[in-house]
């Protein structure tokens, strides 16, 4: 009873998951394909930075943002912030040293995992606290990164595996969590974000990448802003009044 949509996190927070997920996914793809170019890494870092910038706009005390690093022992938000520092360190380092790219990708995976656990740790919101949200966020980020990678001529096979894994993760999530708000973006992800790109990837690779990216972003926007109902209150027992 009294379940209500959370209003604390809006599209600014969602942008962190959308841009940060795609950016870290792209870092992983860049390392997997062993790209010699710097542009994919530069774009990945820019996306992650933009996502963090968007969420910074949402906090109430912007000048205290550095306090976010104070609780690595239990807070996935602190861990995400620390992972971001490492991502930027190795990411920028990869412009000068090739050995830094795999480390940037590893820290990108850590960043993405932290994002998934941020949602999982929100006990008040059934659509977030489900364990299935972790693979959903992980594979959504990877598929978005693979989609972006197609713009840089990266290997289509990795893209195919990534979007199929994402579709599977979405299916598992959908079985576990019944959320009407997730249905439209979920359907789009299955058809426009999976089936259509798989048909297009060998013909028009950038279009396939764009569709995978856009549907992933829509799904995460809906997850953060539309499906995020607090579970409300419940009374396991009603008060016994008067005579019995």
């Amino acid at each position: 009873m009294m379940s209500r949509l959370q209003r604390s996190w809006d599209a600014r927070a969602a942008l962190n998951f959308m841009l940060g997920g795609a950016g870290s996914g792209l870092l992983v793809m860049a390392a997997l394909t062993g790209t010699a170019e710097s542009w994919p890494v530069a774009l990945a870092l820019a996306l992650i930075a933009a996502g963090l910038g968007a969420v910074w706009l949402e906090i109430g005390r912007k000048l205290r943002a550095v306090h976010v690093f104070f609780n690595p022992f239990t807070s996935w938000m602190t861990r995400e912030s620390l992972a971001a520092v490492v991502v930027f360190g190795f990411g920028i380092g990869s412009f000068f040293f090739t050995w830094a790219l795999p480390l940037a990708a590893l820290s990108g995976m850590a960043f993405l995992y932290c994002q998934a656990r941020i949602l999982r740790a929100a006990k008040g919101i059934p659509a977030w606290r489900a364990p299935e949200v972790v693979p959903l966020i992980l594979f959504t980020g990877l598929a978005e990164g693979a989609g972006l990678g197609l713009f840089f001529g990266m290997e289509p096979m990795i893209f195919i595996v990534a979007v199929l894994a994402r579709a599977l993760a979405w299916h598992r999530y959908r079985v576990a969590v019944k959320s009407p708000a997730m249905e439209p973006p979920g359907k789009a992800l299955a058809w426009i974000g999976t089936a259509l790109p798989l048909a297009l990837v060998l013909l028009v690779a950038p279009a396939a990448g764009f569709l995978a990216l856009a549907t992933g972003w829509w799904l995460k926007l809906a997850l953060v802003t539309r499906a995020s109902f607090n579970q409300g209150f419940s009374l396991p027992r009603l008060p016994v009044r008067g005579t019995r």
Partner: protein
Amino acid sequence: MTRWAMVADLRRCVGCQTCTAACKQANATPPGVQWRRVIDLEVGEYPQVKRAFVPVGCMHCDDPPCMHVCPTTATRKRADGIVTIDYDLCIGCSYCAVACPYQARFKVDRQEFAFKAAMPNEDRSDKRIGVATKCTFCVDRIDAGTAQGLRPGVDPEATPACVNSCIAKALHFGDVEDPESNVSALLAENQFFRMHEELGTGPRFYYLWDKAP
């Protein structure tokens, strides 16, 4: 070891919202922010309808999810079980608000007063602007009272404002670790439940619903 807890007797609560008003007056919360609320619930379908009034707010959980997710360590738990927020550390990320299963946390980004200008009890500083706030169990009253040798839950000067104000004696406050306390006696004499216990948060807000069998 002291462990403060609140007990709400659902058989007695009449939903008058006096506790809500008392909390608002004592803590000078801004418009739209209610640290102590009373939910009016209707269950069933006509003609088999039952109604219950349920006081809610921060449950001062044993294992508070808000504290674990807080990236700044602003949210902490005292040895006596009270969950506090350090307004100087909080960055207002609202992660605690989305993590709390009890909808107990609030954040306002602008200073507002119900009567436009601040009333004498209202804080004109901006320390609670842009940060998370919630029920404190009137921790200042408890600390000041116990320093004078008063007993929270027994002496009104050391007791949360909502409990003092309750016209039906539905709200009680005390030390659940003390077997002689008022709340321990109530829990022994009655059947009770805690909200969303399945989440493992260990809320320190007990709801009485019937006398013990």
